[in-house]
């Protein structure tokens, strides 16, 4: 399946979930499909969208948090799987878009390309609900169950690499603007206080 098809199949079932997207392809595609402001789009800290999503999930236990990770980012912080398993947040679902390449920089191959079983790594870390999905019809069939089950879960979406650069543009908000938009959106949606009376 194509990355865009996988993202669409996931977004169609997201309901009220708040998304945290790894930088690059995952963030760009999520923004292109949803234009959703209840989502944090990482600009840096490659690998650590996973930890950001965990912190958000622990802080908002009634919110459903969907992490949209990518294989390159996951490999920068495989330890995140141990931390997720140890905290076992019921409200966190971890998706990985696995295209086996560094797509945003021109499709250069991932380390150990084609030989790594990420779902097995997740299971080995202690996340029992871990699976890999390769076909679109299989993903569409599985998504209602994935959306309904308790976390933590790990769902690897095996997608085709695009040829050359994937030119989906990133979301258009600068770093601080995205912080305030995301924080204000969560304040409104969940009644929490992110910013104090002076706005910081």
């Amino acid at each position, binding site marked *: 399946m194509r990355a865009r098809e996988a993202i669409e199949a996931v977004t169609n079932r997201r309901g009220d979930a708040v998304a*945290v997207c790894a930088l690059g392809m995952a963030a760009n595609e999520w923004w292109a499909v949803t234009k959703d402001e209840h989502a*944090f789009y*990482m*600009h*840096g*800290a490659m*690998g*650590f*969208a*996973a*930890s*950001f*999503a*965990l*912190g*958000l*999930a*622990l*802080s*908002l236990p009634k*919110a459903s948090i969907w992490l949209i990770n990518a294989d390159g980012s996951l490999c920068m*912080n495989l*330890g*995140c799987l*141990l*931390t997720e398993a*140890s*905290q076992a947040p019921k409200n966190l679902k971890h998706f990985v878009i696995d295209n086996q390449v560094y797509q945003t920089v021109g499709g250069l191959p991932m380390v150990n390309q084609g030989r790594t079983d990420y779902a097995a790594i997740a299971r080995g870390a202690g996340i029992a609900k871990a699976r890999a999905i390769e076909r679109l019809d299989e993903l569409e069939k599985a998504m209602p169950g994935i959306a309904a089950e308790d976390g933590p879960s790990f769902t690897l979406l095996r997608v085709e690499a695009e040829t050359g650069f994937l030119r989906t543009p990133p979301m258009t908000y600068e*770093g*601080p603007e*995205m*912080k305030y938009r*995301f*924080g204000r959106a*969560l*304040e409104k949606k*969940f009644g*929490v*206080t*992110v910013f*104090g009376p*002076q706005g*910081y």
Partner: protein
Amino acid sequence: MDVSEKIHEQLKKSGVTLAASLPDDWVAPLIDRIAADNTMRHVRVAREAEAVAICSGAFFGGVRSVALMGATGLLTCTGELATLNLRHQIPVFLIVSQRGSIDDHRIYQEVQGRRTIPLLQAYDFPYHIVNKPDEIPTIPDAYETCRLQKRPFVLFLTRKLVKGDAA
């Protein structure tokens, strides 16, 4: 009340309800103390940058948090502090052992002792050094400064503070 109890008390006074940690031996007693507090969510991590990003996510859930680590760990996560916290102006409060000081005679800490503060200055990360128990009550002001400056803020614990004069 020992030093760890006093720091823990001031963190609670600052409104902190989540801590993410990776120990070095100087901050380990404080981590043990926090881990035993069931009113504070404690997250053990495998790499210090995880603690930074967990605290950053918690910020958006309206939760006040702290990242605890050693000086070597702080050096490992400067990239994430720059590209996540500086990039988006997300405050993160770090409590870090000030290793490599003149009374810390460990050869593998000497670079940390020489280069950590110049590195923080290069990034324009504010810091505050707590050297004596009667300085521990500055923590709530340090925490508020972190929030106000919207960036990483490092609270250093010195050897004299955590080990005492006799050690």
